[in-house]
């Protein structure tokens, strides 16, 4: 059973702190949406409201078009995997998985069969009799996933389920979770502060800031066409370079006129142009075009090399180059940098008084 989930104008305050400030989010049936944002942005609060562990001060939560805002947590048919190890220590893996069915009064035989099936699904066949303390962290989270899925929930909620695991286990498990989610076609909300996790797993990523949704889009779109400077800088690496707004919705940077995407400040405003490291071309010092700069550090990353550069005007930036092109650009080398002619986002210059749009 796959359902849609709609968060409508959700508000939640804790004392004077506003955790959710009118959050709107629509999740399609069978979709995996990642809630991404810095700590304190409200992503966990949003998830806990969907789970029923928090009550919203205002707004509505709809599941399959039905208002469930006031339905208690144990009647929402939601499967949840927690950040910390949440298996019941007094029960075996099979008992943990079958707990939801036990509460629903299902027979022993059915519970046993279902636990076996789910252990198979999460790649732990034969571990029925193991207690949580006999399982590794990764295995515990697999059992926790199986337990959440055992009740065939309408919605699966994942609250940073991988953050307590080491890097390698995290990588395998996130692929597993995605495989299982696609296999079952279950509507899933996934909270994370790890952008790589969000971008690699989700159908859409919802970036949050200060209790509001900044942008919700497919990973590629989020990276290539961020809607706001915050999203641009939060997702991936971003350079801030000084530019001047000119007539016709363009900004001048290093002698190039680049079309402005998104909000356009007044003509003549001094702004920061947001450019990804791959959005800068680095050429030989005698190229003529662009801004002269000096290489400070070159970091070899395999296929690409990341150069840390300082322009003669004092701006610091990073540029990614295919490694074969970067061989000549050792630290201390002189070069010219030019931005590729793509639409760019501009932001208020860091440290400057606020812009008039």
């Amino acid at each position, binding site marked *: 059973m796959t359902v849609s989930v709609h968060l409508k104008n959700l508000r939640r305050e804790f004392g004077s702190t506003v955790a959710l400030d009118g959050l709107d989010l629509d999740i399609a049936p069978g979709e995996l949406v990642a809630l991404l944002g810095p700590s304190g942005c409200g992503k966990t609060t949003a998830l806990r409201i969907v789970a029923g562990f928090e009550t919203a001060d205002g707004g509505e939560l709809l599941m399959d078009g039905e208002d469930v805002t006031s339905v208690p947590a144990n009647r929402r048919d939601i499967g949840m995997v927690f950040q910390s190890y949440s298996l019941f220590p007094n029960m075996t893996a099979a008992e943990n998985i079958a707990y939801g069915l036990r*509460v629903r009064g299902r027979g022993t035989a059915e519970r046993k069969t279902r636990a076996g099936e789910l252990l198979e699904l999460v790649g732990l066949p034969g571990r029925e009799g193991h207690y949580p303390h006999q399982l590794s962290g990764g295995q515990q989270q697999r059992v926790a996933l199986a337990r959440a899925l055992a009740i065939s929930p309408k919605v699966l909620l994942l609250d940073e389920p991988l953050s307590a695991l080491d890097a390698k286990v995290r990588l395998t498990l996130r692929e597993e979770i995605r495989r299982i989610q696609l296999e079952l076609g279950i509507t899933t909300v996934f909270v994370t502060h790890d952008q790589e996790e969000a971008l690699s797993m989700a159908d859409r990523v919802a970036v949050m800031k200060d209790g509001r949704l900044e942008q919700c889009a497919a990973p590629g779109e989020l990276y290539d066409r961020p809607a706001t400077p915050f999203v641009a800088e939060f997702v991936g690496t971003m350079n801030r370079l000084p530019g001047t707004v000119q007539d016709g919705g363009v900004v001048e940077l290093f002698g190039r006129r680049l079309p402005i995407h998104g909000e356009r400040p007044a003509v003549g405003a001094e702004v920061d142009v947001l450019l990804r490291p791959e959005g800068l071309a680095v050429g030989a010092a005698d190229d003529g075009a662009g801004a002269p700069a000096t290489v400070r550090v070159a970091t070899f990353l395999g296929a690409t090399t990341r150069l840390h550069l300082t322009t003669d005007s004092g701006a610091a930036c990073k540029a990614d180059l295919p490694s074969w092109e970067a061989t000549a650009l050792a630290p201390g080398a002189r070069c010219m940098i030019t931005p590729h002619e793509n639409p760019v986002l501009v932001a208020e210059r860091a440290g400057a008084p606020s812009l008039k749009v």
Partner: protein
Amino acid sequence: MARMKFTSRAVVLPLAALYFLVPIGASVWFSVNEVEGISFDAYTQGLGTEGLTTSLMLSVRLGLATIVCGLLLMVPTLVAVALYLPGLRRTVEILCMMPLVVPPIALVAGVTTVLSWEQDLADTPFYMTFQMLRDENFPLVLVLVYTVMSLPFLYRSLDAGLRAVDLRTLVEAARSLGASRLQTLWQVIVPNLRTAVVGGAVLSLAMVLGEYTVASVLSYRPFSVWMVEIKDSEAQLSVAAAMLSLLITWGLLLLLTTLAGGRSRRRTPLNSGSEKRESRDNRKKTVS
């Protein structure tokens, strides 16, 4: 370092053993030493004396009732405070520790005053309540007072138990799987507090079995009061009974701790080859 450990063992342990064993040994000697030689009459015949079984059974029943009342009161309270009212934690702690600083004689003075209202309530249904509280065969009033007196023991042990588990996550996990609050408490929280529950119960039981002041002032006759009463007429029997009560207490402690240990034995880690990697993972997890 090793030498210091050895010295402490060689000196401290025998000293501690002497401190405990000499009085016990002396008591045993007193209870069997007769003019005409050693006699176990106090144990074989004396224990049939009128009142012993009744008073002992009363003490045990009072102890068990106290444990049930104390746990029914404290487990839900502490869970609720930990989950929903963390701000009240300090207040609850202070309240629960109060009986430690209120001497039982002061406590019983208050209880006596309340019980004396019985006369004024003779025409009301409360009269029966008072009668029930004071029932000679099973004085509920003692259970109530002992429950209050056991609060510090229960609080300490349950609080430690609650801090050792990730209560919020366990409760939320159970709730999301559809469990009601009562199911969560009974099937998830209590089993994981088993050691703490048993620990608190053992301490409360030991307290009730040895309590004298309150029972004596209120003129009831549990085991401790009976022992003191027969001391003048049957000194040897009184000491023999004390020895017996010591054995009973130890027996109960052993029984309860065995009950608590039941799960940990069942949970002995398996030692198959595939487990080795996992335990390594677990260690890593602990380190990180």
